[in-house]
């Protein structure tokens, strides 16, 4: 076991470059697929690794309901400083589980309130909010809905309203909320996966923008709709951190530029290299988790035979 069990906890860092580069160089649909797969694998491996460390490290603590041989000196010897590492791992695992429950509970509660709200408004795909600031969002579920405030509709012309509706429909038909949920839960498992969640969120918006452009037949109409909608909302008095601006100007710029090519980048380009690094990281992480799990199993068997 030794150091190999720590690899899955470090390897999420290999996904940081691809999280930064993919969105602006790849077709949004591919970005979503690639980043979601990478994020899931890295988060799963990191969680299993924490689990292994917790098992080995806490086996000898009083009150842990595990077989006696799990606290055998041989098992403990498989990891240096087993007690410290074990408590750290179990603390990390506990906080990840708390984070997952909070995310799921909040989602459930918010969805319940919003669904009750749209149900009260009537049985239509679109619910218009007559009061409140400009807003628009998709409400997923068995009966998917689109919620838009009247103040938002008032700022857009007929074509732009169609673009807005098509954008939200793309979120609903693609079940983008589930993808975003997976990314959020992964972030609970490992904080280094936060940039991946941000990148996936952005790529989902780009996907919906491009889908809306196919429906209305003009990418500039979607660009105008996104731009006008954002200008209708609040402006926070902080400068954008990236030189390219925040997500909204980037989306508008992408819609005004030619349609992105729908193919994978070449390995020697920067996004291609970043993709390879992340794929390598995910593969290594999988191997390390597998190896550490087999190792622990072997150690436990040996300890068992020696009793």
């Amino acid at each position, binding site marked *: 076991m030794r150091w190999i069990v720590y690899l899955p906890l470090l390897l999420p860092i290999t996904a940081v470059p691809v999280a930064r580069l993919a969105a602006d160089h790849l077709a949004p649909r591919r970005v979503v697929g690639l980043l979601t797969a990478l994020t899931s694998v890295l988060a799963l491996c990191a969680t299993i690794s924490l689990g292994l460390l917790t098992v080995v490290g806490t086996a000898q603590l009083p009150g842990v309901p595990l077989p006696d041989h799990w606290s055998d000196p041989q098992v403990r010897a498989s990891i240096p400083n087993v007690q410290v590492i074990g408590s750290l791992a179990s603390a990390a695992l506990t906080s990840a589980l708390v984070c997952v429950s909070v995310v799921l509970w*909040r*989602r459930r509660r*918010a*969805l319940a309130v919003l669904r009750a*709200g749209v149900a*009260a*408004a*009537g*049985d*239509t*795909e*679109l*619910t*218009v*909010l*007559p*009061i*409140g600031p400009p*807003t628009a*969002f*998709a409400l997923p579920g068995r009966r998917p809905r*689109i919620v838009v*405030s*009247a103040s938002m*509709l008032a700022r857009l012309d*007929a*074509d732009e*309203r*169609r673009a*807005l509706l098509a954008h*939200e*429909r*793309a979120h609903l038909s693609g079940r983008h*909320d589930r993808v975003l949920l997976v990314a959020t839960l992964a972030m609970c498992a490992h904080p280094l996966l936060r940039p991946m969640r941000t990148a996936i*969120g952005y790529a989902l918006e780009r996907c919906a923008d491009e889908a809306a452009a*196919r*429906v*209305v037949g003009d*990418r*500039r109409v979607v660009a*105008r709709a*996104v*731009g006008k909608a*954002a*200008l209708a*909302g*609040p*402006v*926070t*008095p*902080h*400068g*954008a951190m990236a030189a390219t*601006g*925040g*997500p*909204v*100007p980037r989306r508008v710029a992408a819609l*005004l530029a030619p*349609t992105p090519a729908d193919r994978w980048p070449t390995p020697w380009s920067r996004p291609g290299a970043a993709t390879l690094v992340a794929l390598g990281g995910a593969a290594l992480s999988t191997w390390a988790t597998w190896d550490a799990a087999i190792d622990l199993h072997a150690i436990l068997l040996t300890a068992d035979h020696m009793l």
Partner: protein
Amino acid sequence: MTESRAGGPPARRGPGELESEILSLLWTSPTAMGAGAVQEQLSGELAYTTVVTILSRLHDKGVLQRTRSGRSYVYAPVYDEAGLAARRMRQVLDKEGDRQAVLARFVSDLSTDDEALLRRLLEEGGS
């Protein structure tokens, strides 16, 4: 969804989508509208009878109210139920944490730099 239709005519729409489009049109109209006016304002060629059917269905669902105007009806959104729904939903929409747990909003908030950049982009290529 995968076929490219850049520059082509607007796509054919399903009944649910037409309802949404007509509803969003009526919500932006300062006055109640008749079927003829709705048909005129919608992009794409919709039959007058289709528009009438959708308007009366929306009325049946309780989201549109209608008043007689001459020999036909004019339609306007029902504000009461929608307002009630909106007030219920505000609890969630006003809380940042709750909102992020479920929703990808159409647009995120802008920074002051974003605003300037966005205005320039729209001026250059949006029109």
